[in-house]
């Protein structure tokens, strides 16, 4: 074969292979049936509906394999007690031991309520900014994920999160946090905490959808986010939120 011919044929073969392989890749991605760019997730929490049963905390641990010790949480529930002398007491309730300790007599309470909390999946996440190795990032569908392979466990993001949503997983020694149950929502299921909430205090959905429980929630209620002054733009919004909640 002539040298010129060899090169000619070789080049065409290579380009054909290249085109074929990109098609193959596309086909593979489409069979998965999930296009992250078509979704953008958020959550609504109606504070007045939370009964502080802690089912969400249990379910989250079950679903995501969070260590059972009562100080590792991806989601948790705080009990706020505003006393008559204006003192604010915040307790993190524990679903296993002494579920809701009654440390304040009822006649000293001005008002009291439960506030479920989790990662706010901020649109401008401080945790992503500070990660020195780029292990944490925002996906196309708006969820903040941590790459446990890349994370070096420096705890910088744990410090940076204004909502205290992150913890250092003692098993992997990497930062861990709520993923909105990414493995569930990409299959069209609800996050575990939303699934088990007995009073529908948590509402999950796609911000982009025109009609959904989340859209209805956002139309019906006066909403607020936690620490709006930090301009983190949380995607977890609260209805009936008291001004004392931090």
């Amino acid at each position: 074969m002539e040298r010129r011919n060899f090169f000619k044929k070789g080049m065409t073969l290579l380009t054909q292979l290249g085109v074929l392989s990109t098609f193959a890749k596309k086909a593979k991605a489409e069979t998965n049936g999930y296009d992250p760019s078509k979704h953008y997730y958020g959550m609504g929490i109606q504070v007045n509906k939370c009964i502080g049963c802690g089912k969400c905390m249990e379910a989250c641990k079950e679903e995501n394999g969070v260590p059972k010790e009562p100080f590792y949480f991806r989601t948790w529930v705080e009990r706020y007690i505003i006393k008559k002398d204006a003192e604010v007491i915040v307790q993190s309730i524990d679903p296993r031991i002494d579920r809701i300790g009654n440390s304040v007599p009822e006649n000293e309470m001005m008002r009291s309520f439960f506030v479920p909390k989790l990662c706010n999946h901020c649109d401008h996440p401080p945790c992503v900014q500070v990660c020195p190795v780029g292990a944490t990032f925002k996906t196309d569908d708006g969820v903040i994920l941590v790459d446990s392979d890349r994370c070096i466990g420096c705890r910088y993001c744990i410090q940076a999160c204004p909502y205290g949503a992150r913890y250092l997983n003692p098993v992997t020694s990497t930062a861990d946090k709520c993923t909105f149950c990414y493995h569930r929502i990409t299959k069209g299921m609800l996050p575990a905490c939303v699934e088990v909430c007995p009073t529908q205090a948590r509402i999950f959905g796609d911000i982009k959808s025109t009609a959904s429980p989340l859209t209805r929630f956002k139309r019906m209620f006066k909403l607020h986010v936690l620490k709006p002054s930090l301009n983190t733009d949380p995607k977890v919004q609260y209805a009936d939120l008291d001004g004392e909640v931090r």
Partner: protein
Amino acid sequence: MKRLLQKIPDSLLRVGTAFIVFIAAVILVRSLIPASLKNTEEHRKATVEREVAHPVRYAGSEVCADCHEQFELKKKGYHKNLACETCHGVAKEHTENPGDVKPVKNTKREACVLCHIYNPSRPTGFPQINPSIHNPMRLCIECHNPHDPKPQHTPQECQACHAQIARTKAVSSHARLECTTCHTVPEQHKITPRQVRPTIPSDRSFCGKCHAKESKFVGTPKIDLVMHGEKYLCWQCHYPHMPEVE
């Protein structure tokens, strides 16, 4: 070739060999590092894939309906919005292997009391009991079907419509007062509730029958009707269905 090598000074040859070995080592090590750690796009894709591959443990209520008839019953009752797995625990494995893996069936009082014990932080009107006086030692399921929980008797009279007030009053210090103690209800109110309304006490002396310091009633908090509360009527400060205790 040999001559060519001999022409190169020995020292240069050694340095050259070392350099080539070094380059080879670098290439080798780099090829061992997975692409997901070198390329941002790759690393994000790998993380997303890892998250998506996480096993699902909560199956979601819809699946239960295929086999379990209780689902139809539950759909009509007060527990209609409760997911099956809120009480029965994770059931994904059960759906895959219904014969061998059985979900939890907790019939103990604690299982129900978890959500239904009275707690001042819980939202007003949420059905709550005091388990130490509400038929202690008996199982909840003896009287209430958890798939269609109902009060033992169909609410009659006032609480059929005013359930939230009835439930609030039931755990308050006014629990033992009948509605008719304070309200006179015309028979017509039951037919056209909005046109004909029950009476509400119109002056302070009504509450004073029990709470004035001259009252002979035993065991109630007493006040001086003349000095206390200025121009206000009692219920402008005190909510009679849940009066605060001092």
